[in-house]
């Protein structure tokens, strides 16, 4: 085949055959061309042949750190070394490194954190130390067939690069050194090439005192020596066996998720039908929460069922007393003493075991060292703040100093003979217990970007003395001057980021003009700018009790975009004409310039509405809005919209000392629902508009209809109380919830609504055209389509929706990528994740403040039993939104028994505790352990004889997470 591509750099064409599998498991052959090049740089600064092919960093500085074993050299690293020791390569002692394309792809496929590190080292932070050699495209190093039978493919490719570079560099007298991790691999490669070293061996031979620090960092690995005969875990199957198994259906892949109640149990969802397999004990085989694993079903006689028992590591550690902690050999394997009787025939579920790891989801974890009783020990156990992550064994000399700090640790590997994964210390966050440290932990753990805005972001801001300009138009549809309208905003007290304002005026007999005006954020945040990228990454503003992490810089969020009273601001208006029975006659959208007449609080607005003396335009407008909102609300409820309850509370903070003063009394005012109704209406109207215009890329929000089975806990709980819940339709559900009223237990209705929320999945953002149209619906709000338009200052979804609407009506350009479904989906994935994390972080922050609040206080409160387990009860304290587990020790002697089926606790046969019934608890902070102060619940009423309830578990491990 003669080559006539007249382009530089291409040397020849090879055919490269790959096999791949489609979703249904069918295997295809694909023959692809591979253009082999002769314009790829070897990376050596002195090389004349390659000088025009790229920036050649290698040996630009003549080996400043000498190595006792080799002369002038450059290093070729293998993928295992990079994956395991990626932190080490930050050190400037390791220079002149070559990452081959094969290694690059290997790392990328296997380990995300290592890949990120490698990418930033090679292309940003350490460009002067790293060179990427494109061996698979290089005409001299590409090889389809194998030349060395004793080597694995990866080793062979490394070796062929080394051999090529050796010849290529002969006249420069530079030797490529291959750095490997694996012992066997080194032995095999040494048969063919002289310079093969372990990374450790290389570092040991460095002639620089700084090497000691590196060696310390590597220390974690030696502890897992091969000396230990006792293998705890089974070996993983080979990659090929797993792939075969997946193809034939005997092995499934899925995401490993650990139970929140019992750390020894996990489930893996293996298909689209949400079929889940249960995994327990050692069958988890070193999988960590979040990993993608390969699982295989056990024979049916080995199937078990969830214990329905609360097992949390911190409790067990307290029971065992901290002394055993340093010594894993003495920790008897509880797995073995599980009563066999449990495995009785009743109710077993599909039980499986992990046979391999497809992709690790390891990240860096925040947490603390567990106290060790052995003075001066090197090996320590690290307790991650996230309770789904196992303890991690690390080695450190500075345990004394670290014991009072929150630290960050990364997992390196998990050998078969170790009960815990092995990791290393990365850095310290700060003094334990200090507000800053704990907040930092919280933000890191929830992956919330919270660094101050960068210069390039701040450069995108307009000047502070910005003034509106009506002549400035971005699209054919001009901005409308609405400064004369009586517009006002209604928000919670102290709100500085006001994104919505309203107006209502009568324009005819039984005809009203109602407007919702939303901050025109997209006027300032232009696509493709640094500020837009940052907002897209953050996705949402995060509210902690004592801190707000803005999505947009303060100048925009609290000033230029915020629709403050008596100030001229740009807005995006949605204006309806409707009759007094809220029948919409028309709707129009345009950008506008408004001047809000008043920025009211909910309370103030309510006061104005209720006071007949108030007769100004603001008052009249508010009353009009209120009337219409009641009609809208009645209609929505009639359609089956659900009223759900959440357990969230807010603290009133003392902003001086940033400590919680008291729990905010939640008072529901009519003005709350008034504003809410119009926001819903605006969101629905906008959703309709953008969907009509962009049926395949509009950003919408849907709330999936829950499966009937998922209501089981709710239906059961209600049935025990004598109520029937109808789950056939949203309307049925809403109505039946309304009927669940128990005069003796006024909280019952709210508790059931809380349970309902838990039965459902969360609402999510998605791009139109990616799911079937019937699934667009928002179940909770009972509407066919929905989106978010009304809070662009604090949600990125709204920013995109603003752009879509502006494009649809011609108020702005259609910016690049806006109408791309794939991009929209990508944005949705991120903001869905960010929203979830923000929500969790908010809750964690409340919990953290509950601990702070109860310091030195004791309070007796009413609580409710939310669940009964084999060894304890879950208690919810509404006043503090606190949900904790009280462990009960049942024993025949005391006559106390727990009936999980009936959801009750009995003493001598009499039911004393039932699900959803009130109990009295005493709340205090247990500070016995200085490291981990935790909120403790004690059961006061009903008193259960013989049972001292000594510890609780708030759902955190003392970190409030």
């Amino acid at each position, binding site marked *: 085949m003669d080559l006539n*591509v*007249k382009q530089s750099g291409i040397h020849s064409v090879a055919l490269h055959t790959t096999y791949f599998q489609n979703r249904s498991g069918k295997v295809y052959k694909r023959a692809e061309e591979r253009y*082999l090049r002769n314009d790829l740089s070897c990376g050596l600064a002195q090389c004349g042949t390659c000088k025009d092919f790229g920036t050649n960093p290698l040996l630009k500085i003549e080996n400043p750190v000498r190595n006792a074993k080799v002369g002038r050299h450059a290093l070729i690293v293998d993928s295992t070394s990079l994956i395991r020791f990626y932190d080490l390569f930050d050190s400037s002692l390791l220079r002149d490194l070559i990452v081959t394309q094969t290694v690059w792809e290997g790392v990328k496929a296997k380990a995300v954190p290592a890949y990120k590190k490698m990418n930033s080292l090679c292309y940003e932070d350490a460009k002067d130390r790293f060179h990427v050699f494109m061996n698979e495209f290089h005409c001299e190093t590409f090889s389809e067939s194998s030349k060395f039978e004793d080597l694995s493919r990866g080793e062979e490719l490394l070796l062929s690069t080394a051999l090529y570079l050796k010849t290529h560099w002969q006249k420069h007298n530079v030797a490529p050194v291959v750095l490997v991790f694996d012992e066997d691999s080194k032995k095999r490669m040494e048969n063919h090439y002289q310079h093969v070293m372990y990374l450790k061996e290389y570092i040991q031979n460095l002639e620089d005192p700084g090497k000691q620090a590196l060696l310390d960092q590597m220390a974690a690995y030696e502890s897992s020596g091969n000396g230990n005969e006792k293998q705890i875990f089974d070996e993983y199957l080979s990659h090929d066996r797993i792939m075969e198994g997946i193809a034939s259906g005997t092995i499934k892949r899925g995401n490993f998720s650990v139970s929140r109640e019992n750390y020894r149990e996990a489930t893996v969802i293996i298909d689209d039908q949400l079929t889940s397999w249960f995994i327990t004990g050692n069958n988890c085989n070193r999988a960590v929460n979040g990993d993608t694993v390969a699982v295989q079903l056990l024979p049916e006689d080995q199937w078990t069922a969830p214990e329905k028992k609360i097992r949390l590591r911190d409790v067990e550690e307290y029971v065992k007393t901290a002394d055993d902690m340093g010594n894993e050999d003495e920790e008897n394997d509880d797995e073995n003493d599980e009563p066999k009787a449990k495995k009785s025939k009743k109710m077993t579920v599909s039980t499986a075991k992990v046979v391999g790891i497809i992709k690790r989801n390891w990240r860096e974890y925040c947490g603390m060292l567990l106290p060790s009783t052995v003075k001066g020990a090197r090996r320590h156990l690290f307790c991650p703040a996230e309770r789904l992550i196992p303890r991690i064994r690390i080695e450190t000399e500075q345990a004394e100093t670290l014991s009072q700090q929150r630290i960050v640790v990364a997992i390196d590997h998990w050998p078969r003979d170790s009960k815990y994964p092995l990791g290393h210390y990365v850095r310290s966050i700060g003094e334990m217990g200090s507000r800053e440290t704990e907040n930092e932990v919280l933000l890191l753990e929830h992956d919330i970007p919270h660094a101050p805005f960068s210069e390039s972001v701040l450069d995108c801001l307009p000047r502070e003395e910005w003034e509106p300009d009506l002549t400035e138009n971005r699209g054919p549809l001009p901005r409308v001057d609405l400064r004369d309208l009586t517009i006002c905003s209604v928000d919670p007290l102290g709100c500085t980021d006001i994104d919505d304002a309203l107006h209502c005026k009568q324009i005819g007999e039984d005809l009203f003009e109602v407007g919702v005006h939303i901050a025109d954020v997209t006027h300032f945040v232009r696509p493709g700018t640094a500020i837009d990228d940052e907002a897209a990454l953050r996705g949402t503003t995060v509210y902690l009790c004592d801190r707000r992490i803005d999505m947009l810089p303060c100048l925009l969020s609290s000033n230029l975009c915020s629709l403050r009273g008596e100030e001229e601001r740009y807005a995006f208006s949605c204006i309806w004409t409707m009759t007094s029975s809220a029948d919409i006659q028309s709707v129009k959208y345009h950008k506008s310039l408004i001047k809000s007449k008043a920025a009211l609080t909910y309370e103030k607005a309510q006061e104005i509405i209720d006071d007949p003396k108030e007769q100004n335009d603001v008052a009249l407008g508010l009353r009009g809005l209120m009337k219409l909102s009641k009609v809208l609300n009645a209609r929505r409820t009639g359609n089956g919209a659900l009223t759900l309850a959440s357990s969230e509370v807010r603290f009133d903070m003392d902003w001086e000392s940033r400590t919680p003063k008291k729990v905010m009394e939640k008072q529901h005012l009519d003005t709350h629902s008034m504003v809410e109704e119009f926001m819903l209406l605006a969101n629905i109207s906008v959703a309709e508009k953008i969907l009509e215009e962009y049926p395949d890329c509009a950003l919408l929000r849907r709330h999936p209809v829950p499966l009937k089975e998922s209501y089981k806990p709710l239906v059961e709980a209600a049935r025990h109380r004598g109520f029937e819940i109808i789950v056939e339709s949203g309307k049925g559900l809403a109505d039946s919830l309304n009927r669940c009223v128990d005069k003796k237990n006024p909280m019952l209705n709210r508790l059931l609504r809380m349970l309902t929320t838990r039965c459902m999945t969360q609402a999510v953002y998605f791009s139109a055209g990616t799911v079937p149209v019937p699934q667009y619906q928002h179940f909770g709000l009972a509407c066919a389509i929905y989106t978010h338009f009304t809070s662009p200052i604090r949600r990125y979804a709204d920013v995109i929706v603003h752009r879509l609407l502006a494009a649809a009506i011609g108020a702005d350009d259609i910016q690049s990528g806006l109408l791309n479904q794939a991009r929209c989906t990508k944005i949705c994935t991120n903001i869905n994740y960010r929203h979830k994390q923000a929500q969790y972080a908010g809750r964690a922050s409340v919990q953290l403040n509950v601990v702070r609040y109860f310091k030195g206080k004791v309070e007796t409160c009413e609580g409710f039993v939310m669940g009964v387990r084999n060894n304890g009860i879950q208690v919810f304290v509404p006043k503090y939104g606190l949900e904790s587990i009280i462990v009960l020790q049942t024993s025949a002697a005391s006559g106390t028994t727990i009936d999980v089926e009936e959801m009750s606790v009995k003493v001598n046969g009499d039911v004393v505790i039932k699900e959803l019934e009130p109990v009295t608890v005493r709340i205090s902070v247990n500070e016995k352990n200085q490291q981990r102060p935790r909120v403790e619940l004690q059961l006061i009423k009903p008193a259960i004889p013989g049972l001292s309830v000594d510890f609780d578990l708030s759902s955190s491990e003392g970190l409030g997470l």
Partner: protein
Amino acid sequence: MNIISEHGFRIDGRRPAQIRNINTRLGLNRNAEGSCYLEHGNTKVLCAVYGPYEGKSSKRIEDKCAIVCQYSATKFSGLERKNRTRGDRKSTEISRLLEKAFESVILTEAFPRSQLDIFCEVIQGDGSNLAACVNATSLALADAGIPMKGIASAATCGVVDGKPIVDLTSREETDLLPRVTLATICGRDEVILVELQNRLHIDHLSTVMDAAKATCADVYECLAVVAQQHLKACAPILGN
């Protein structure tokens, strides 16, 4: 999978603006007036030209030659074996596009009331199938000695993150990547065919068109060399 890797290369080792290897053989089919087998990398097409002849009266046009094109793909052209490969909507559309394009290339006034048939068959499809068909037809027409304004050449161009990539393979085409197929005459500015797939942002239009035109010129150079060599081989009398 990134279409352009972190290192700036495509999956097959090309840089974004590089085309695949082009290979041709002219005059394979002796029964046809002109024929051409052409490869763009792994995309392989065969084109045969019949006529001009006195065709069906229904197709007849008073003052020029009617161009009738039939595009099809073999059952084994894709990764999966297909049953129906001709007469489906996509094939018909491509046939019409080819007809339109070559009506403006061929000097149709030279053969009034006659008909010219063009058959294009994709033997192996690996992206840029339409472009390959245009190029093969161009050479087949040259082989047949049909008078033309010049040799038409075509290429595809897509946009990844605002950057153009040319001559896409089927793996690169699978994404929702916006891409155009463009054909010009003699590598100059005169455009005879544009087909757009997926939504392309207006900001990227000029980038894509510029890159596509430049690529058409590259392809034209290859085709011109082939045509000249073929001409020399067929007609030694013409000499230099």
